């Protein structure tokens, strides 16, 4: 900690010196009395002042929380020398608030150890380091101040609120391994497909004895096998729109975690590509550990401004396996992300888009020209949607305040209709 004199020391010493000199010069002792309190304060302050030693540590009662939760941060201060006035200012990120104030004042005697608790409010998801602090220690007369910074402790991981999904995104193409999607092919499975005459190689357990008795020849049941799918979530981090801490990226992250939880629970292989100023990806995988990897990748997602022209070629090959279904979570604002979605569809990928709508975050404006501009912007967005749909992209719009499940139902309905049209 750096120790230096406060402006008070120079001012008090100066006033004391000037008044004492004036008293001597004009031979009036009363002048010395004007500066006497300043002189006493300086002498006492210099006598009492000494460099202080401080040890500080932080501990979170919970290192993982859900958005909206309150977490206690315990601040423990030790001082072998004692400190008359110690201010602990917590440098909190905007996403973490302190309803009781982001700082506290302590006074410690020599060898004391004091623990105080600061309640933190987790206003937004992410990985935050709330325990970075700067310390200000004054001596008893505040003539000297010591300042220092304290490194952060363990991060606070804040998860977005969990959206529950019942429906899975229906992939157009399935993989060969077992899963929860009913394949349109015939094979071993649970879902009944149809009955047909026995053919050599059919298993005896497949024989439908009722149909066989009615037709006087062997008939067997055909079933749809249960297969899994490869899903890649494309998180658009090119840009975001929002008010305060509530942005379209929040919607995208909430949807990503909901989809990842649901699909990994259904034994799908799932990966993620965060496409924006900085490219991040997690190759598709299975299971709880994969969910953990995806959540960790999503929680550090942020919009990094970049003017670089990025195309689909920047996505690593391992991040986009063949026959994978791509679910893009995008506000459909940045032309680069719209272009990449269109290009993926043109390359034959099965693409679905969950549009995290920026419309509720925009206001038309009071002037007629602003209202017209807003309407034109909405029309442009409609045109983008129509263009993507015409390219075979399933698209649904999700807005704050509506359940994600409803948006996903819309997606499923659209895909079902679309398939009928294709046939």
């Amino acid at each position, binding site marked *: 900690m750096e120790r230096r004199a406060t402006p008070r020391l120079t001012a008090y010493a100066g006033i004391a*010196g000037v008044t004492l000199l004036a008293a*001597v010069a004009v031979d009036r002792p009363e002048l010395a009395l004007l500066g006497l309190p300043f002189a006493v304060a300086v002498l006492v302050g210099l006598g009492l002042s000494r460099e202080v030693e401080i040890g500080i540590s932080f501990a979170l009662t919970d290192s993982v929380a859900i958005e909206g939760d309150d977490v206690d941060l315990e601040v423990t201060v030790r001082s072998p020398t004692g400190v008359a006035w110690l201010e602990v200012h917590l440098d909190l990120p905007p996403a973490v608030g302190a309803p009781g104030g982001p700082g*506290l004042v302590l006074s410690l005697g020599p060898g004391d150890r004091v623990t105080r608790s600061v309640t933190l409010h987790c206003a937004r998801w992410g990985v935050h380091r709330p325990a970075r602090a700067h310390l200000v220690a004054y001596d*008893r007369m505040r003539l000297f101040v010591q300042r220092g910074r304290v490194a952060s402790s363990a991060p606070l991981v804040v998860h977005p609120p969990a959206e529950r999904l019942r429906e899975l995104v229906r992939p157009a193409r399935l993989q060969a391994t077992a899963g929860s999607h009913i394949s349109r092919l015939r094979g071993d499975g649970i879902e009944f497909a149809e009955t047909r005459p026995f053919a050599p190689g059919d298993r005896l357990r497949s024989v439908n004895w009722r149909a066989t008795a009615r037709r006087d020849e062997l008939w067997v049941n055909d079933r749809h096998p249960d297969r899994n799918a490869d899903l890649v979530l494309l998180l658009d981090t090119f840009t975001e729109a929002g008010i305060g801490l509530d942005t379209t990226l929040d919607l995208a992250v909430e949807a990503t975690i909901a989809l990842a939880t649901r699909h990994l629970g259904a034994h799908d292989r799932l990966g993620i590509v965060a496409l924006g100023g900085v490219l991040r990806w997690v190759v598709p995988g299975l299971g709880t550990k994969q969910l953990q990897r995806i959540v960790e990748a999503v929680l550090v997602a942020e919009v990094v401004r970049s003017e670089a022209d990025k195309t689909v070629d920047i996505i690593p090959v391992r991040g986009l396996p063949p026959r994978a279904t791509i679910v893009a979570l995008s506000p459909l604002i940045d032309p680069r992300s719209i272009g990449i979605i269109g290009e993926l569809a043109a390359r034959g990928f099965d693409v679905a888009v969950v549009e995290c709508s920026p419309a509720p975050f925009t206001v038309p404006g009071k002037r007629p020209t602003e209202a017209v501009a807003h309407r034109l912007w909405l029309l442009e967005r409609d045109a983008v949607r129509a263009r993507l749909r015409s390219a075979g992209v399933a698209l649904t719009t999700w807005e704050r305040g509506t359940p994600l499940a409803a948006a996903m139902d819309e997606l499923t309905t659209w895909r079902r209709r679309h398939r009928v049209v294709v046939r």
Partner: protein
Amino acid sequence: VRSRGAIVAAVAAIVLAAATAVVLAVAGEELRGLVAYLGGFATVMLGFAVVAGVPMLVAPAITTITVAAGVTVVLHHDVVRVDAVAAGIAIYLVAELAYRSLEGREPLRVDGAVLLAHIAPVLAISLGSAAAGVGLLAVATDAHGAGAGAEAIGLLAALGVVVVVAMLARGRPPTRG
């Protein structure tokens, strides 16, 4: 963002400075205009310092108000100004309040006991200075020992100057990273 304590200290500093300036101006007699001007200027400067958050302006403001008090004291050649002790303490309190207001701008949770323990030295300095001042003044103006008293004050003044000069020459105190 300003803490409630900082606002209270700022208002108290300005009010006390204004009150001191008014009292000094009233006592200023034939130089009332000059003293009132100095006191008013100091109060406005102090107000600007605490409102705009400029600690550098506090020292000139306090020095100006001290000069106004000095003028009032020197004005009366034949009378011993006992109220100089009170004026000194008032100016010291104005300076303390102004600096506290500037140092406590960020809202912080402070326990009442900690705050009281931190205010106590200021009050002790004020009371101690008052007692010492009255005592020194009595010694300095005693009819029998006036000469010795004045010499004691002079010696104390010289000692004070030496201490101040030594302290300023010492410059920045040793630091540790």
